[in-house]
């Protein structure tokens, strides 16, 4: 699975890096550092990634299932 964060939609709600804390982290302004990137999701973190994507109020996170 891969996860991408749409940098234009992300508004720093902080839901994703709180729910998937081993996968994502925040910067000093509270935005996820993976803004505008596509990252690999380890198999044991796929549930967290799904919860993070589903909890984003901006629908900024897209999951690409392998």
């Amino acid at each position, binding site marked *: 699975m891969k996860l991408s964060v749409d940098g234009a*939609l992300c*508004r*720093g*709600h*902080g*839901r994703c890096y*709180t729910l998937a804390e081993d996968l994502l982290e*925040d910067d*000093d*302004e*509270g935005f996820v550092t993976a803004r505008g990137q596509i990252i690999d999701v380890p198999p044991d973190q796929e549930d967290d990634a*799904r*919860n993070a*994507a*589903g*909890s*984003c*109020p*901006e*629908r900024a996170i897209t999951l690409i299932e392998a």
Partner: protein
Amino acid sequence: MTTTEPAPGNPLDISARVPAGCPVIHLDASPPREVGSHWQKANELREISPTFFNTHAQGYWVFTRYDEVREMYQHPEIFSSEVIIPWDPEPAYRFVPTQIDPPEHSKYRQLISRWFAPNAVKRIAPQAHEIGRRLVADLAPKGSCDFVADFAMRMPTEIFLTILGVPHSDADLFVPWVEDFFAGFGGDLEQQETMVAALGGIKQYWVDVLEARRGETELRENDLVSHLVHSTVDDQPLGDDLILDILTVLVLAGLDTTRGQLGYLFRHLAENPDDRHRLIAEPGLIPSAVEESLRLYTIIFGDGRIVAQDTDFHGCPLRKGDMVYGLVSGANRDPRMYENPDDFIVDRVANNHLGFAGGPHRCLGAHLARMVMQVAVEEWLAVIPDFEVVTQTPLMERGGGAMLTLCTLPLSWEATA
């Protein structure tokens, strides 16, 4: 709240544009009601239609469902924040950065966004716990309290003052000011003088703090006013008026709102021992319970915007200057988005509620509010694990003209020594 046909011969000019598929209501959400009435109303409207035209005040469009409310938030080029109260289309105030649109908005937002980011909130977490522990310890021996007045207002205020870098004991001043301000803000004309006096008190407090920081060449660490004094926008230092506007809006946006959310969360915990006991057994679920309370017990009945360009929005012919009102509380219970939307599910996943709004104006204090709520639950349950609501009359909530809050929440428990 009533839903009725408009009076005959209504002179509203917008009414002539309301299309056949868009029902017309007359809804004034400002009077106090029995607790839960506002959410019930939002639920009813949402299931009748995604859009309404409301003849309240000068008349405005109402959006009731999740997707439409999010769309409103995500399109500031159509839905401007220049006006945010739909029944007050020509406001006498201007909140910064609340009422500034992109691209200017980000310049002002960046001045303060780091101050309320998770890292900054973590910095003061130890003090927040200390404040919560002290307030609970003071109340525990009493065996009862009005949670709203005795705890829910006091705790966020002390923590807020701490993060700004002024003495938390100044909550003695801020608590009555904020109470007085919101007594008038909901539209009660008899309270207008008190409201103006409270606003004057808040402003003077910051004038004095600002004066003390103005002449200083050294930046004071962890002191927001000092930080603003040493900040620039477009290479220009900030004027006193701008700094005072920012500080005032932080007070008005941050304290009453957290009080409101805390009241509903603790009413839920008082009335649902299973959820309470689960949080005691599994404290790791507290953050999730806080999110669920923000979704289910949304204090923002609705949020307003002014239309910046003519747009056809889901069948509504919006014209520049029209006001719109997105029912956030209804969106957060939309069955199109959530399973069992009216149930409190402690460990709900995919909780993408709009309780902190969305788009560029996403609540700046969201991270702080979450921390305050989590700490409140932790510290309270550690000392008072069992408590109940004790009242002979139905609980009332302040109307949705401003933000919802319980008027009182009488709690009772076994007094501890």
